[in-house]
């Protein structure tokens, strides 16, 4: 009996972990795909006004962070904030249109390494915490943004 119980526990645990490890998630061609299923997450961000408010503190964090400061200090911050809000809105299935340039074009002439990309992620997490965005909602957005490292990180 004990062996059967042990075997069952062992099998079910390994199957669970195995499924979690290899469960196929379709690779998206568009690095910022609109996902209508994330509309509830869009609501958790407080809709478009919530995203606009989030960008204010996100930009403050980016300027405070020595790792990201020089990339944002001298740019048209109002424009960047507006484009980020539009982009996040589209990703989360919101009723917006992204009017900015694509990610590759935007970052082509910048020198950004993986550390810089992660720094931006950390600053965004701090800003989302400030705005009391639930952690799981944060991760759903970050899950859509993370693959953009392929366009944003320009240094090996």
């Amino acid at each position, binding site marked *: 009996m004990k062996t059967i119980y*042990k075997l069952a526990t062992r099998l079910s645990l390994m199957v669970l*972990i195995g499924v979690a490890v290899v469960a196929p998630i379709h690779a998206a061609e568009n690095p910022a795909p609109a996902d209508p299923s994330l509309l509830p997450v869009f609501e958790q961000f407080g809709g478009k006004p919530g995203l606009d408010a989030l960008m204010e503190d996100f930009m403050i964090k980016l300027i405070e962070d020595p790792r990201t400061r020089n990339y944002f200090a001298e740019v048209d911050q109002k424009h960047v904030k507006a484009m980020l809000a539009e982009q996040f809105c589209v990703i989360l299935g919101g009723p917006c249109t992204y009017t900015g340039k694509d990610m590759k074009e935007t970052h082509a002439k910048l020198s950004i390494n993986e550390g810089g990309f992660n720094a931006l992620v950390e600053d965004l997490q701090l800003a989302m915490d400030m705005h009391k965005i639930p952690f799981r909602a944060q991760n759903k957005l970050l899950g859509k943004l993370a693959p953009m490292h392929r366009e944003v990180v320009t240094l090996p």
Partner: protein
Amino acid sequence: MKSVKRFTGPGVAALMLFMALGESVHAQDETTQEPSPAELAQPDTSMAGSDKLLLTGGVSQLEGAAGGGLTPWAVIGGYGTGDQIGGNAFYTRVNVQDYHLDGAGMLIGFLDRIELSIAQQRFDTELVGEALGLGRGFTFRQNIVGLKIKLAGDAVLEQDSWMPQFAVGLQYKKNDRGAVLDAIGAKDDQGIDFYASATKLYLSQSILANITLRFTKANQIGILGFGGDRNNSYEPQLEGSIAWLLNRKLAIGAEYRMKPNNLGIAEEDDWFDAFIAWAPTKHVSLTLAYADLGNIVIKDNQRGPYLSVQVGF
């Protein structure tokens, strides 16, 4: 040879001149527009940066590799990214009914690609040692040197792909109680474990999963030597971890580690734990777990707390 040189010389010179002209024309094109301050911005390239995201380097597993508590993960330990170096040191104490295990060690992660680790385990037999005629508090000591290499994938950033991060590694272990190990039927006081790990963070589910396949001859991870009267060949063992991220600094989860059963005199069980890991900053983490180590030599149902502290960068 000489004639060939003479023949190609002018050709190469002309080609270089042509290329240089092309370069200067190209350079002129670029200078017509001043680079913006953002384009001039340079990343911090000091290798001591710690830019990996919080907890994505795992914690230190029992044998010193980056992973969960029991099992190595495919991540490279420390907070170094692809152009940085990370490192940490750990102390772990596992207190089960009739024994306790202390482990300490450190690791270095190079360029998020290669991980080198060293660790020492001290397994104290407490009163069991006396009962077995070894003496009260008889302690097995084991030194471990580990190497792990990341092969492919990215556990964290490739969120639109199913592919996990893959790594392979080895752990060389040397036990200091050869005579006792010989007496209980172990075939060797040293051995090498080989493993392959796949690790993936599923951000949209806030879940991290790992699966490891280990080839080993180790009895009770090497505390009781390597190989035995019942079996003396490498056997594949599956290990798994699953963690649920509660917030950036906190994760809970469970682990499982399958083990061989090589010694006739000492039944060996698979190991389980349930853990909570907390990283208030990138420089320190605490892991508290409840471990079920099953039977160890003459004592069944060895369960108890597991506490691990890690400091690093």
